């Protein structure tokens, strides 16, 4: 049986959604020059606030509102310390993550210890009329809950914002050369404030999706590194909306397959074929770029042998078992390898993580 089926595609979309929500917001704030390491903490506090509000109000929408508010207020602290007080953005982000982990754990134990564990009702998936009847794509892409559609619509909205509005131009200027933005009359601090808060709100939404959108309960530290994955996705996606979306989908696909593999008795043989072909494609793409260099044909040989090894493993179908921890670490390993592979070809916003002080040279 192949693990690459409709259920896998559908899980890919569901698992990509929280990362996509967070990294779309983070993309905007990084384009404005604010690197938000505190993303993880904002997701976590969104997850908690969302659960808390919908637990007591029995309303999903109020939960969403609370999550957005929680993410945004943590982001406001981030903005206050890193923009107003010009503190180091990375240090501030690390501090926020610790505060968020401590505060959510503290509050969860204070409020919910002794209460019966309940699972909140989950929002129903919405089948888009027409589109959801397409075979394969329909059930996997167009029968999802509302937040999933919001995440993908947000990518389009952010693209329009960044590249088709004056505001977007100011945002990009604030991240590339804040002195120039300042000179041309844009208020760098105000731009950075609003972009940071937008990133926090989106991270809060991502957290709400994790707690009340997908499982209906909260666990301590449930963001489980998704904030860091989202930061990697922004880099992997080359600081461009569509690139970030593709990066999130790729990471979501890896996450979906590792979840599946944990349950399989041994590694399905088709996986070897897929890995071999992906490795071959990566090397072949490199060969196409550098085919005029001497010895470049070696890359072609490597590409063909990768594909060959994959095919051989597919046919031989060894019954190997790997520990679940290997699969659990796979998304992080893939994110790391992806960063190592692409980072040289993309350029980060010049003023990223640099506080702007009027009168100081960048």
């Amino acid at each position: 049986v192949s693990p690459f089926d409709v259920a896998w595609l559908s899980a890919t979309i569901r698992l990509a959604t929280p990362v996509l929500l967070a990294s779309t917001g983070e993309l905007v704030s990084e384009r404005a020059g604010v690197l938000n390491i505190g993303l993880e903490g904002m997701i976590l506090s969104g997850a908690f606030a969302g659960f808390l509000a919908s637990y007591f109000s029995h309303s999903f929408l109020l939960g969403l509102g609370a999550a957005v508010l929680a993410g945004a207020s943590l982001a406001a602290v981030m903005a206050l310390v890193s923009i107003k007080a010009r503190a180091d953005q990375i240090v501030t982000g690390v501090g926020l993550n610790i505060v968020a982990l401590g505060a959510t754990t503290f509050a969860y134990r204070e409020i919910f210890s002794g209460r019966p564990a309940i699972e909140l009702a989950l929002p129903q998936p919405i089948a888009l009329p027409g589109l959801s009847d397409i075979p394969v794509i329909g059930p996997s892409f167009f029968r999802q809950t509302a937040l999933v559609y919001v995440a993908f619509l947000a990518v389009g909205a952010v693209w329009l914002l960044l590249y088709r509005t004056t505001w977007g131009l100011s945002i990009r200027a604030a991240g590339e050369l804040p002195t120039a933005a300042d000179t041309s009359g844009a208020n760098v601090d105000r731009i950075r404030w609003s972009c940071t808060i937008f990133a926090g709100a989106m991270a809060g939404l991502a957290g709400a999706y994790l707690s009340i959108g997908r499982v209906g309960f909260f666990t301590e530290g449930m963001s489980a590194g998704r904030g860091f994955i989202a930061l990697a996705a922004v880099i992997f996606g080359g600081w461009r909306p569509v690139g970030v979306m593709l990066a999130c989908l790729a990471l979501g696909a890896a996450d979906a397959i590792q979840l599946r593999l944990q349950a399989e008795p041994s590694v399905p043989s088709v996986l070897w074929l897929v890995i071999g072909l992906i490795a071959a494609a990566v090397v072949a793409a490199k060969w196409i770029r550098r085919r005029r260099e001497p010895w470049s044909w070696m890359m072609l040989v490597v590409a063909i042998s990768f594909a060959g090894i994959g095919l051989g493993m597919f046919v031989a179908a060894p019954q190997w078992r790997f520990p679940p921890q290997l699969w659990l670490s796979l998304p992080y390993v893939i994110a790391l390898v992806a960063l190592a592979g692409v980072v040289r070809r993309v350029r980060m916003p010049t003023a990223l993580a640099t506080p702007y002080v009027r009168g100081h040279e960048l």
Partner: protein
Amino acid sequence: VRFRVAYAAAAIAASTAATALALLLSMIIIAIAGASPVDAMRALYEGAFGNRVQIAGTLTKMIPLVLVALGWIVAFSTNRINIGFEGQILIGGAAAAFIGLEVTGLAAPLHLGLALLVGVTAGGAYALIAAWLWARRSVNEIISTLLLNLIAVQLVSWLVHGPLQEPTRSFPRSDPVATSARWPKMVANTSLGYDLILALLLVVVVSFVLRRTTFGFRLRFTGANEEAARRAGIRTTFTTVLAFAVSGALAGLAGCSLILSSETGTLTDNFSAGYGFAGIVVALLARNKPAGVVPAALLLASLRQGGGLMEASVGVPASLVLITQGLVILLVAATAFVVERLWVVRVDAPTPAPDLTPAASMVKEAGR
């Protein structure tokens, strides 16, 4: 010299104020949670310094904090940010535990020495992955170290559920490591081992190396102005990678202490227990000066040690300590610019433009 004293005074004042404010905010949180802040603080103090055993516990918790903070200072002196201490602690400690469990028949000092050597090397090697990715593939070291932390957690989890699990296979932990590989106890019937002496010694060593040796000068020059350092003939990339490895090695040593100096001496899931991040708090509180690390580590260690009793006797969850730590980071970060500014203004005030930024003063130092 007067400026330096003024700067130090401002820095100490700001750090103290930040800590006091963080504690005050924590007390407000305790009050909101419905407990008496006074009782909670008394429990915190009793738990940290109440008797011989508690004091020894506080000092034991200080050791990894000091080592991690030194690691941060070394990497940060070249302007690189290592937030992978959690992972480096886990890998270093796991490697030391492996030696402690699998190597037999060595005399006590040799066995301990070997375990430490392997642990330190493993921690450094794990940091080198991030350093290599930074140097050769320009991968941001912040993201890579964070991801490596998450990978290390899974690696240790696999070890304690698989190859190194205790023989009955009912608990996710290893057997205790051989006594010959343990740190000898400094105070009988407490947790405190001789690794405290090593940690304090390393504070002096790191301080000396950074300030008084050519190697330390290269590190600081690279950190202050990479371009200028390269033009002055320093191999900046190599220097930075080396600093990163040393930083990871110090975290690896912290990992060794957490296993070889612990009461049980077993390898467990997630034994780094947030020391990797708390160590960063220590370094920031000390404003990246080795001398400040000891008091800052003592403070955070006492919070950690006292948090347990506070939870047990007053019913305030010990995760409050995490909130306090995070607040300390935010407040120290927020005041750093103010302190810096104060210093720059004082230096700049007399004559119009004597450029005494750290890089410029180093160029002068180099010319001398």
